[in-house]
């Protein structure tokens, strides 16, 4: 299906990442946003609300984040493509309902413009420390999909992708952007509507009396119906069977399928951007704004004759396990920069199985990495003859200046 021309602001725009995400949502056919003001995500809601009445979309500013995400659940089950926009503290408040959405397989998108934390943290500055929370922040076992953009252009593109994945797999999809990308103004090319591919809602087409709410298709995803279409739905977030009825028999429930529909379709879902991996001795694994800053270090390292591969995680969750394991057998080591003190790097470690060295280049947030730090980490990998156990944590120039060299090398 193609986008509706009315929804798409075709042209070359000069907008920030927040606004680009809102434009992406509109282009993807999003017709409902429940939101609540929170820095640094508010610009996205403001951009959406200005355009909403002209494209038949509804924006409601709810009384809190609990309300906004709950309203998003309702609107999505009414048949509208729906999303909410938030940042760290709001994201934390939404966790319970994200689990609810995962359990009832409600398609929706969350834009999380990450900021420095924990708690109130640094509202106007950047961070990438919600990555683990995004994966399993709600109670119980479920899988989600997250995407990390590195620019306003990608905020636009990935928001559309997020909606498509949400509808295709009936799963919460999170755009894990950050303050830096959200508040950065750049050129964004919005294509013509007929160049934008849109995943339609997966509606059930069989006879009404044969509808079984959680009976999956071959790809493990069940088709949906809309509220008020006369299907006499009974939906409960209690552990339920195919009919949606509560059960304590886990074997007959959808619990396993919530995981499998993502894990077994991982090859279709996972997107990575790779370059120079063929003969790389060092691989930089990064996502979001960090991958952009890291690329500067990669370029520089190459000028010095180092063979550096670049692995960008477009989808951080699900994680490209196979790819990393495969690489680990060929390379000397991995450099993982992220704006936190180590989250995704543990996933890299898990997949490397001790085959190669790993250096984490951490960052406390409120700014982005100094590319020189990443470059130094790359050089260290090349130089090291020794194999380390676990992850080597790199001390950045700034940390060295503040805390001294400590016992890390």
């Amino acid at each position, binding site marked *: 299906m193609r986008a509706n021309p009315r929804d798409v602001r075709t042209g070359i725009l000069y907008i920030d990442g927040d606004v680009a995400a809102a434009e992406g949502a509109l282009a993807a056919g999003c017709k409902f946003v429940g*939101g*609540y*003001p*929170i*820095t640094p995500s*508010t610009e996205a*809601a*403001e951009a959406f*609300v*200005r355009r909403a*009445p002209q494209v038949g979309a509804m*924006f409601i*500013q709810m*009384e*809190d*984040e609990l309300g906004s995400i709950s309203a998003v659940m309702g609107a999505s089950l009414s048949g509208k493509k729906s999303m909410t926009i938030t940042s760290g*503290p709001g994201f934390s408040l939404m966790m319970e309902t994200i689990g609810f959405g995962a359990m009832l397989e409600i398609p929706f998108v969350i834009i999380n413009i990450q900021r420095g934390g924990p*708690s*109130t943290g640094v509202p106007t500055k950047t961070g990438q420390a919600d990555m683990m929370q995004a994966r399993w922040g709600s109670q119980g076992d479920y899988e989600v999909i997250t995407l990390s953009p590195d620019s306003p252009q990608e905020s636009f593109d990935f928001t559309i992708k997020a909606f498509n994945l949400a509808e295709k797999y009936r799963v919460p999809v999170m755009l894990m952007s950050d303050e830096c990308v959200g508040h950065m103004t750049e050129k964004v090319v919005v294509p013509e509507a007929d160049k934008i591919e849109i995943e339609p809602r997966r509606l059930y087409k069989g006879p009404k009396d044969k509808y079984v709410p959680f009976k999956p298709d071959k790809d493990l995803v069940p088709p949906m119906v809309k509220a008020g279409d006369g299907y006499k739905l009974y939906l409960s977030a209690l552990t339920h069977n195919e009919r949606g009825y509560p059960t304590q028999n886990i074997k007959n429930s959808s619990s396993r399928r919530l995981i499998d529909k993502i894990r077994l379709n991982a090859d279709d879902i996972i997107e990575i951007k790779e370059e120079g991996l063929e003969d790389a001795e060092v691989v930089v694994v990064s996502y979001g704004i960090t991958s952009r800053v890291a690329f500067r270090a990669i370029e520089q390292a190459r000028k010095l004759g180092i063979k550096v591969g670049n692995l960008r995680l477009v989808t951080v969750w699900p994680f490209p396990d196979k790819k990393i394991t495969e690489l680990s057998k060929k390379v000397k080591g991995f450099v993982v920069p992220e704006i936190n003190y180590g989250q995704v790097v543990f996933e890299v470690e898990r997949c490397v199985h001790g085959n190669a060295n790993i250096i984490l280049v951490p960052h406390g947030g409120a700014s982005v990495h100094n590319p020189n730090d990443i470059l130094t980490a790359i050089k260290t990998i090349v130089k090291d003859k020794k194999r380390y156990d676990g992850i080597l944590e790199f001390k950045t120039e700034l940390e060295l200046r503040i805390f001294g060299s400590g016992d890390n090398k």
Partner: protein
Amino acid sequence: MKNETHPMENYLRMDRIPHIWCPGCGIGLAVTALVSAIEKANLDLNKLCVVSGIGCTGRVAGYIKLDSFHTTHGRAIPFATGIKLANPELKLIVVSGDGDLISIGGNHFIHAARRNIDMVVICVNNFIYAMTGGQVAPTTPSPAYTTTSPYGNFEPSSNVPQIAESAGAVYVARWTALHIRRLTNSILEALNKPGFSVVEVISPCAQYYSRINRLGDGMDMMKFYHDNSEIKHFEPTDNLSIGYQKEITVGKFVDRERPTYTESFQKWLKK
């Protein structure tokens, strides 16, 4: 001149001044009233706590030299409840904004009032979310413009005294930032009253609310309050909603007795 000290120096964290509030903002006036009331109440300063949530008014706790807590968004009241119940000797003052107390914190607000937890809640109402750049609040009158109501707000607005009264507050008053003396008196009365007291302070937001709606600066808003506020003590709270640039009814609306949470608890314990 050298020896001259600020009259409020004992109550403010002078090392954090200048504060972050914009020129023309009314929060500073609310702080002045609060400090004067504390001074007049002659309370043991070591037994006073100030709790704030998030937002412009949420920064109040950071400037007052008492035990002060800058908590998470909307959670000032439950945080204060915890302090109060853990140590009933303490006197709790919650200072926060309309968005923090009435929107995200609305549930805690009504439940604390229902339980009649002994605390003074000062709700600085500037009709807008200012810290995040001017979004619509439940208190925004219709049809005021904000960044999330770019076509004019169409939602009916919250009537803070009415919510407080219907949920069970024992003392409810409203003043504008202009009525500094009466405001001080109300806070003083509230401080001396056991139970859940609410004092609403209508305050200008020169940077966002006034600018988006072209209402002039802080002084213009003060003049507006001067010309358009009417004191009506014990006015039924139904009549207290505030229209856009309409008359503002101020005064003391509720002053009643109900056993506080701690009292009821003690009574049950004895039984």
